[in-house]
């Protein structure tokens, strides 16, 4: 960090009464924190640089906070420090205690906080526009609260910022409840929901426009209330399987909310960050949609998985082969190359540690073990990778779909644990299938397929039967994933 002396308040123009007067040092400090945030994301291009990147992010945040505190006349420093200590303490404890399987919920909860913070900041700016330097001094104050009308451009930014923040908040709360299991994963479909949503959206935009010339409290609070409502309405019809897209999308929204507030405050750090986070979330949503061969619009429209058929009723039971842990262990020992395909079921069963133990045993016997991760495995992007990393699986044994898919032809065993739709060949062949066109693993090319599944009854989120169950070379291992893997480990001794 630069020498703090230059930020001393007496060297600066009084920012409080002219927030947009740019002091070059202050502007540079915010720019520096923006650049550090870019470096934080840049570091994530490889695990070896990622930790340094995270530290850049922390430094950037420290610069932004310290700069703000040093350049404003602070009437209530103790309260502010207490607020930071309370929040920081809560955040730190949560971060240390949270289970890695619960990361999707945690991220959704964090998104909701960014959204709420944006709403609160927007409301504060509305109540005290002078502090934010967004007062329109040229205008007469006939209609504004307290006789201080907000600049036209700032009013639009403020309205949009509050609306995006509120959508992020209520949407993330619903996503959290669904991911955390407090609310069923099944989509909830209201009649005429598209009409209701579009109407609400139009009303919000209309009110933001109206807010520029009537800044009475009811306009502001109605914008916020409608935005809270639409965030709720947008997420309830989206099913559990689409949660990776939803979490990424809300990630993006939280960025745009920060950017909108950055426009209001003319703050480069906030604008750069908002743009980074906004595009990050958008790209992740795109990657998730592509990996499911669904359009973003169809995910947002919701309802996917609503018509899932419950456990194969009125369907003929096709013959399949069932094996025991001992059978599986025997074949695994003989194999030269094993590719493990983990899915959300592995996370639910907490089987990742047992799985790594199994892989260690096999490696000790000279078997080559690799892990294959589908982009939509788990409930958020990269979720499986974190769980495997937690179980101390080295990251250079973990491969992405496109990097490993050609290797199944040389694999002796494809070991599927807790995954289903991502190995379903119907995605390649059956045009009528709801998952048609989704890129899937070519497990049918492996000499032998092991499929760990709780029972034959359940089907994947897409609610479709999977031909892999009934293939000649498939052995179904029907049990709890953790129990089954532990039994295989025992049998390998």
């Amino acid at each position: 960090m630069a020498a703090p002396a230059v930020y001393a308040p007496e060297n600066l123009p009084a920012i409080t009464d002219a927030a947009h007067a740019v002091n070059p040092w202050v502007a540079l400090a915010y720019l520096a924190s923006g650049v550090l945030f870019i470096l934080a994301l840049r570091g994530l291009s490889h695990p070896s640089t990622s930790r340094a990147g995270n530290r850049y992010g922390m430094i950037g945040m420290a610069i932004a906070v310290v700069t703000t505190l040093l350049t404003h006349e602070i009437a209530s420093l103790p309260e502010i420090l207490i607020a930071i200590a309370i929040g920081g303490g809560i955040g730190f404890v949560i971060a240390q205690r949270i289970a890695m399987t619960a990361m999707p919920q945690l991220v959704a909860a964090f998104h909701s906080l960014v959204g709420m913070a944006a709403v609160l900041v927007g409301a504060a700016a509305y109540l005290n526009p002078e502090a934010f330097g967004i007062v329109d001094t040229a205008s007469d104050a006939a209609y504004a609260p307290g006789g201080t009308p907000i600049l036209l451009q700032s009013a639009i930014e403020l309205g949009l910022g509050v609306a995006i923040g509120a959508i992020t908040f209520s949407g993330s709360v619903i996503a959290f409840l669904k991911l955390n299991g407090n609310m069923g994963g099944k989509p909830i479909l209201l009649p005429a929901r598209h009409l209701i949503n579009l109407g609400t959206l139009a009303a919000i935009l209309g009110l933001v426009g109206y807010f520029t010339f009537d800044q009475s409290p009811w306009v502001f609070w109605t914008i916020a209330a409608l935005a809270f409502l639409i965030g709720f309405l947008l997420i309830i019809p989206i099913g559990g399987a689409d949660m990776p897209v939803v979490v990424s999308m809300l990630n993006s929204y939280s960025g745009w909310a920060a950017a909108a507030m950055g426009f209001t405050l003319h703050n480069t750090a906030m604008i750069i960050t908002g743009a980074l986070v906004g595009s990050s979330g958008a790209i992740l949503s795109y990657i998730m949609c592509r990996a499911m061969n669904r359009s973003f619009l169809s995910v947002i429209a919701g309802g996917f998985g609503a018509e899932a058929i419950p456990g194969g009723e009125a369907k003929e039971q096709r013959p399949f082969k069932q094996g025991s842990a001992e059978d599986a262990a025997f074949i695994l020992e003989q194999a030269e190359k094993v590719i493990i395909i983990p899915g959300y079921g592995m996370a639910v069963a907490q089987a990742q540690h047992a799985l790594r133990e199994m892989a260690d045993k096999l490696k000790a016997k000279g078997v080559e073990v690799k892990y294959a991760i589908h982009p939509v495995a788990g409930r958020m992007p990269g979720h499986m990778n974190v769980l495997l990393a937690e179980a101390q699986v080295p990251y250079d044994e973990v491969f992405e779909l496109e990097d490993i898919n050609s290797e199944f032809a040389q694999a002796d065993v494809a070991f599927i644990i807790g995954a289903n739709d991502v190995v379903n060949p119907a995605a390649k062949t059956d045009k009528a299938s709801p998952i048609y066109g989704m890129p899937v693993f070519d497990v049918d090319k492996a000499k032998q397929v092991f499929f760990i599944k709780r029972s034959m009854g359940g089907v994947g989120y897409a609610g479709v039967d999977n031909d892999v169950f009934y293939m000649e070379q498939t052995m179904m291992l029907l049990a709890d994933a953790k129990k089954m893997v532990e039994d295989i480990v025992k049998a390998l001794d």
Partner: protein
Amino acid sequence: MDFISILSIFVLACFVGYYVVWSVTPALHTPLMAVTNAISSVIIVGALIAAAAAEVPGAKWLGLAAIVLASINIFGGFAVTARMLKMYRKKER
């Protein structure tokens, strides 16, 4: 700063974000979301401005509440990212 300069920064930052995020390895997409969460709480800057000004008590309290929420995110986001990144290790050879 006038609106156009701000807009320029914003548009260019979107492009920077686009290229930087595409270069993030998919294995680190969860840490990416956690850290973007932490940095989007730079909105704390607005909360600090609101809390620092004493003349409107309502705005001050809203600001303080926003500081608490943003701090949960900042500390929680960076800490959980650090915790995750610590787990990624190479094969020992």
